[in-house]
């Protein structure tokens, strides 16, 4: 285990050196700069209710994406989002430690439980792994409700904040997101990521060329659940409330949708997916009242046509992406970027 660790760390360090000298680095800096100055141009409401969730869900979707890159598609990631959220808030409230330490400890706890679930999953094929993870996300609701005296999960409670909500919180979430997504990028580029992809493509062959598939699948599980827990802790703070609803299948399916729509296995995919889906969920409801007037005669049994119609549309969108653009929308953006770069370099020559 130690040698793998040293090797992978060395490989991650090498990737970091490569990255800091590449063109991507400048692109990365440009994106960071744009995200950093965003609050100057939009209202505080947009910063708090649209941009902050986008950033937090980008971490969450990236963590799911990292696990999926090893061929393990979790359908119960909400369990780890919730564990991170509850643990970080409960630790801060019950033991009085600063919320930021609670956030780290909560993520570590999420990773520890991820290790246990990962141990149950390492031998399983894709379908069963999906079922077991989904099942775990349902069991955990029962467990949290059973120990309601300690968790307070049935009624929910206010979460302690690291910094006040709004613009300060945005910058904090942004810092966390930049660091964690960068770490995940380095991991996926390193030898670890290569092993993950080999396992995804063909586990038997990966085993044959000497990859200890069980170990690498577990490593993917632990890293992924750590960042999912971190996202959960941040999310609970961003809405300043946590309750059992965080375990709902909706939160398990969300990172999957984001990663698949954006582009599975790429680093930018989950981020793009998070931006697309959160934008849809933040802005499309504004046409709900118009929709109700228009479509209510067609669907008389529902009071509000908008939400189910939107979800139905998301489902169709997901299926269409999987069938017609299995690499998601990220390659399209990459293509556009390459096109722009080649046309500018032509101008220079």
């Amino acid at each position, binding site marked *: 285990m130690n040698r793998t660790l040293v090797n992978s760390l060395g490989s991650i360090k090498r990737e970091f050196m490569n990255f800091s000298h590449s063109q991507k680095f400048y692109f990365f800096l440009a994106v960071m700069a744009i995200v950093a100055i965003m609050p100057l141009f939009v209202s505080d409401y947009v910063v708090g209710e649209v941009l902050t969730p986008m950033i937090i869900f980008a971490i969450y979707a990236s963590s799911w994406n990292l696990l*999926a890159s090893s*061929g393990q*598609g979790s*359908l119960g990631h909400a369990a780890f989002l919730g564990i991170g959220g509850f643990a970080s808030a409960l630790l801060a409230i019950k033991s009085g430690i600063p919320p930021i330490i609670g956030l780290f400890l909560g993520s570590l706890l999420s990773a520890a439980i991820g290790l246990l679930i990962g141990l*149950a999953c390492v*031998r*399983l*094929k*894709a*379908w*069963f792994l*999906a*079922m*077991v993870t*989904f*099942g*775990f996300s*349902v*069991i955990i609701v*029962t*467990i949290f*409700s*059973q120990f309601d005296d300690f968790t307070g999960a049935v009624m929910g409670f206010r979460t302690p904040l690291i910094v006040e909500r709004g613009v300060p919180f945005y910058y904090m979430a942004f810092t966390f997101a930049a660091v964690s997504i960068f770490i995940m990028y380095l991991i996926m580029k390193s030898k670890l990521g290569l092993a993950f992809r080999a396992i*995804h493509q063909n586990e038997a062959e990966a085993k044959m060329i000497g990859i200890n598939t069980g170990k690498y699948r577990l490593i993917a599980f632990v890293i992924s659940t750590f960042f999912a827990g971190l996202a959960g802790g941040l999310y609970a703070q961003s809405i300043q409330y946590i309750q059992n609803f965080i375990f709902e*299948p909706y939160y398990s*399916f969300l990172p*999957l*949708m984001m990663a*698949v729509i954006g582009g*599975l296995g790429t680093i930018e995919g989950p981020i793009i997916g998070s931006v697309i889906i959160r934008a849809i969920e933040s802005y499309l409801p504004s046409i709900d009242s118009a929709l109700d007037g228009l479509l209510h005669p067609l*669907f008389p*049994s*529902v009071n509000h*046509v908008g939400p*189910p*119609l939107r*979800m*139905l549309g*998301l*489902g*169709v*969108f*997901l*299926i269409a992406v*999987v*069938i017609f653009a*299995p690499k998601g929308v990220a390659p399209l953006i990459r293509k556009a970027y390459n096109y722009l770069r080649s046309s500018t370099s032509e101008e220079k020559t």
Partner: protein
Amino acid sequence: MITSSGIVEALLWGVANGCIYILLATGLNIIFGVMKLVNFAHGQLLMIGAYIAFAAATALGLNAYIAILVAMGVVALIGVGLERFTFRRVLGTDKLNEIFVSLGLIYVFENAAVLLWGNRSQQIASPFQGLQLSLGQVSIGYDRLLAISVVIVILIALFLLLKKTKIGLAMRATSQKSTASMLMGVNIEKVYIFTFALGAALAGAAGALYGIIFPFNPGIGALPTIKAFAIIIIGGLGSIPGAVIGGLLYGIAENTAVYFLGGIWQDAIAFALLIIVLVIKPTGIFGEKGE
């Protein structure tokens, strides 16, 4: 209070609930056996089946038990569409793609049901509603008894279909080795469509029975899927007798757990069983070879 008649009743009700899950698990199992495909939206087909039967019973005034046939037919047609337009496109690519497509289908079905029928809980009106058969201190509803017999009839018909007909032979051949059966002149695409429609029809029948016994709403589909999975895993992948035994064991386990531990454990037990069996014996209790 725990009494012997209470335990007998829990067992009997467990058998009745188990029957519904047997149908669902058998459908899932047939599709998996022939196509090596797992449809996570199978429970949503059950939900759609319940609504179709409900619509047939209320709008057309059909008897609830005749509405089961309508539900089977309509859901089978939906199954044909699903196979043709979604799953066939991703079959044989990355296994994760099948999971993604089923997830999209879950969204589509649940929200289409909300749009068409609303969020309220419904139940199919059966002519035997509220009637109980009492044997000493043990009593069971007529509807539950009828559900058990309907499931037995369907399973016998299914057995005959698989063992005695040409398409059944083709399905069994395809499940063993699809390329070899293709070389022997089996039209694989037709077999796939038929298999998926058959599995969907079983889910539709399960849905109609579910709707007669329990109240339902558009969100009920997810749990039956997982229960069907647990049953398949207990019974062994691809084995129909295994699904029957697994379903009965599961229904009984669930009901006795509710009887001894209380209602909130009803759903958790499915996952506990699923995870325990997968960790201890990933091929299932009756399964022989791993997939």
